[in-house]
């Protein structure tokens, strides 16, 4: 993929082809080369766009303008107006009332460059994380003051509910609802836990917040504590994040000195204290009940649910467990209001999402963008294209437990609803971008090996299933797989999902499922033809076990 100044996508679903989108494509080719623009503007097919009212259609990036329905005769006009003169050919823009869902959203922001929108990372990398004054200078602790002085707990719950914020740890559970559950539970003691055990491979968004803006988490936890009626909080930071722990401890002591933590904060009678708890390097402790067990000093094994932590959590008391990124959104929501937050992102998934981009792209790093941006946009705009002009083959979202997304889904907006509909998961926000040199069997093997090692061993499906799946995949990679192996993998995947005790086992089968549903032919090539199409697997012909 070359980095071009504009990108033209022509819809390629069966209906568009029937209505002549191939002719549209070739007309674009002719027109562009006539004007000598073929090197500046990339032309490709648009994978399934999900809507059929305005077909055939053409989408032009970076403006994200949708034209449709168009005929080959319209093409010269679009090329002349939009690509040559840089004006939007408004007479051909698809009418919004004919579109709905994801495309309607896409067209509602036409004409704007999808720039980064920073809420969670607003201050990280700008302020000195070891200076509380610098945080206060950037509107810090304003939200806490506002909450404690002018709002009652119910107002806070309503505000968070109205914002539509969803948990950013991977599952996407509505945050306001979770807060309400804890608030309703009756108990003499409640806890707030910040889950900072970020151990999904490839994810490091929480580290950035913890290291760059630790006070925002303290502020958010105190707000959460006030809303649900808790007076004690824990931040469970993974053991490898030594710097994050150090900065968090320093930030807590600074907040205590200023009276922003402790007794009678802002003279409101509200008390709140926070402890830092260090993890010890177990992936399973990112699961909320295992995390709670670990804080209690026990072995990190997940509990059976129900009862849920919202009623029986830490030391059997109602406990609110939220991810770092979720909490980092809270002060901004309180300061600027729920309706402001609603105006960002998609209607059903408001707000932004932080992604860590890694893999075969030109620019790796972190971005925070509005919900609903597509993978294609992330790769071409923020990641500056694929490395060495290679071809995009798949993306792995959300670390090991996320989905493997084939190139055909790269035009799906990245928000919780659209991804659910497409049968994939958004996960925690890691985007591992792979080019055509990646072997799907090898990738799947690596991911399953991770789960095999990290399974806590409490329940059989996960402990034995992952081990067996790894054996089978290794055999396929050595060229001794059989067609029965594929069936076995399918049933292991099903049992993992249906019978495992916790989220680790339930999601461990995702890579297998995605591999078999999107890349079946490649796996079959390993089995039937005994070749690895990418030349990655050893194919030694010896059984491993």
């Amino acid at each position, binding site marked *: 993929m070359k980095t071009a100044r504009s990108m033209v996508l022509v819809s390629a679903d069966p209906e568009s082809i029937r209505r002549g989108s191939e002719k549209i494509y070739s007309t674009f080719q002719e027109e562009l080369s006539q004007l000598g623009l073929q090197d500046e503007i990339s032309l490709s097919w648009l994978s399934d766009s999900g809507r059929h009212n305005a077909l055939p259609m053409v989408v032009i990036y970076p403006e994200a303008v949708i034209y449709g329905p168009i005929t080959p005769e319209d093409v010269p006009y679009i090329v002349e107006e939009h690509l040559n003169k840089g004006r939007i050919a408004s007479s051909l823009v698809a009418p919004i009332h004919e579109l709905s869902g994801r495309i309607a959203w896409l067209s509602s922001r036409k004409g704007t460059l999808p*720039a*980064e929108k920073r809420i969670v*990372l607003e201050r*990280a*990398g*700008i*302020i*000195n*994380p*070891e*200076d509380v*004054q*610098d945080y*206060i*200078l950037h509107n810090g*602790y*304003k939200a806490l*003051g*506002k909450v404690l*002085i002018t709002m009652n707990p119910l107002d806070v719950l309503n505000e968070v509910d109205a914002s539509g914020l969803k948990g950013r740890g991977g599952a996407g559970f509505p945050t306001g609802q979770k807060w309400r559950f804890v608030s309703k539970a009756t108990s003499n003691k409640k806890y707030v836990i910040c889950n900072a055990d970020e151990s999904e491979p490839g994810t*490091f968004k929480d*580290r*950035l917040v913890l*290291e*760059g*803006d630790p006070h925002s988490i303290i502020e958010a936890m105190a707000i959460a504590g006030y809303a649900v009626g808790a007076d004690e909080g824990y931040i469970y930071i993974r053991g490898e*994040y030594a*710097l*994050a722990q150090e900065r968090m401890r320093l930030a807590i002591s600074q907040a205590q*000195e*200023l*009276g*922003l933590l402790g007794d009678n904060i*802002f*003279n409101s009678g509200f008390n709140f204290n926070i402890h830092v708890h260090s993890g010890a390097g177990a992936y399973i402790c990112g699961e909320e009940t295992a995390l709670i067990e670990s804080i209690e000093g026990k072995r990190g094994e997940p509990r059976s649910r129900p009862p849920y932590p919202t009623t029986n959590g830490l030391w059997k008391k109602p406990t609110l467990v939220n991810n770092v990124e979720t909490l980092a959104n809270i002060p901004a929501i309180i300061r600027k209001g729920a309706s402001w937050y609603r105006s960002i992102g998609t209607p059903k998934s408001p707000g932004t999402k932080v992604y860590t981009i890694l893999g075969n792209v030109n*620019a*790796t*790093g*972190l*971005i*925070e963008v509005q919900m609903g941006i597509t993978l294609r946009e992330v790769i071409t705009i923020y990641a500056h294209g694929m490395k060495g002009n290679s071809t995009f083959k798949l993306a792995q979202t959300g670390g090991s437990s996320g989905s493997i997304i084939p190139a055909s889904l790269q035009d799906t907006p990245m928000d919780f609803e659209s991804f659910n509909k497409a049968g994939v998961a958004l996960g925690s926000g890691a985007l591992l971008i792979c080019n055509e040199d990646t072997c799907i069997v090898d990738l799947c093997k690596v991911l399953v090996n991770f789960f095999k090692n990290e399974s806590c061993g409490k329940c059989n499906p996960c402990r034995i299933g992952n081990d067996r799946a790894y054996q089978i995949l290794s055999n396929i990679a050595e060229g001794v797989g059989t067609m029965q192996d594929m069936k076995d993998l399918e049933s292991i995947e099903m049992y993992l999902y249906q019978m495992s005790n916790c989220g680790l086992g339930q999601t461990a089968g995702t890579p297998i499922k995605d591999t078999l549903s999107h890349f079946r032919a490649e796996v079959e090539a390993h089995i039937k033809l005994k070749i690895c199409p990418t030349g990655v697997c050893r194919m030694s012909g010896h059984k491993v076990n």
Partner: protein
Amino acid sequence: MSTVKTLEDLKRIREEAIEKRKAKAISGEVQVIVGMGTCGIAAGARDAMKAILDVIEINNLSGIIVTQTGCIGLCEKEPIVQVVLGEQSKVTYGKVTPEVAIKIMKEHVDGGKPVQSHVITLT
């Protein structure tokens, strides 16, 4: 700093910080900010920081404040160093090795001319 009990207290701390910042800018003070998140440190931010401090010590420079910040999200460009000269706007440098850091200190902090070859634009 005294404890914060009302929104006025918070506002006061904020105003103090703004005042301090203004005074710094007017007096032409130089701020050198080094990105010291885990990614920055892994890429060699400590070496860059050390080189900067060495330059200040050897040449006995004054009026320069060296501070740290977290990661800004451009992990690929680490180590990142930002320089603010008095009231001028911030200049961001990427891939700052100790040699580049010394160059920045000499040409930009001392000479007032940004080292264009290492400037990165934030989008």
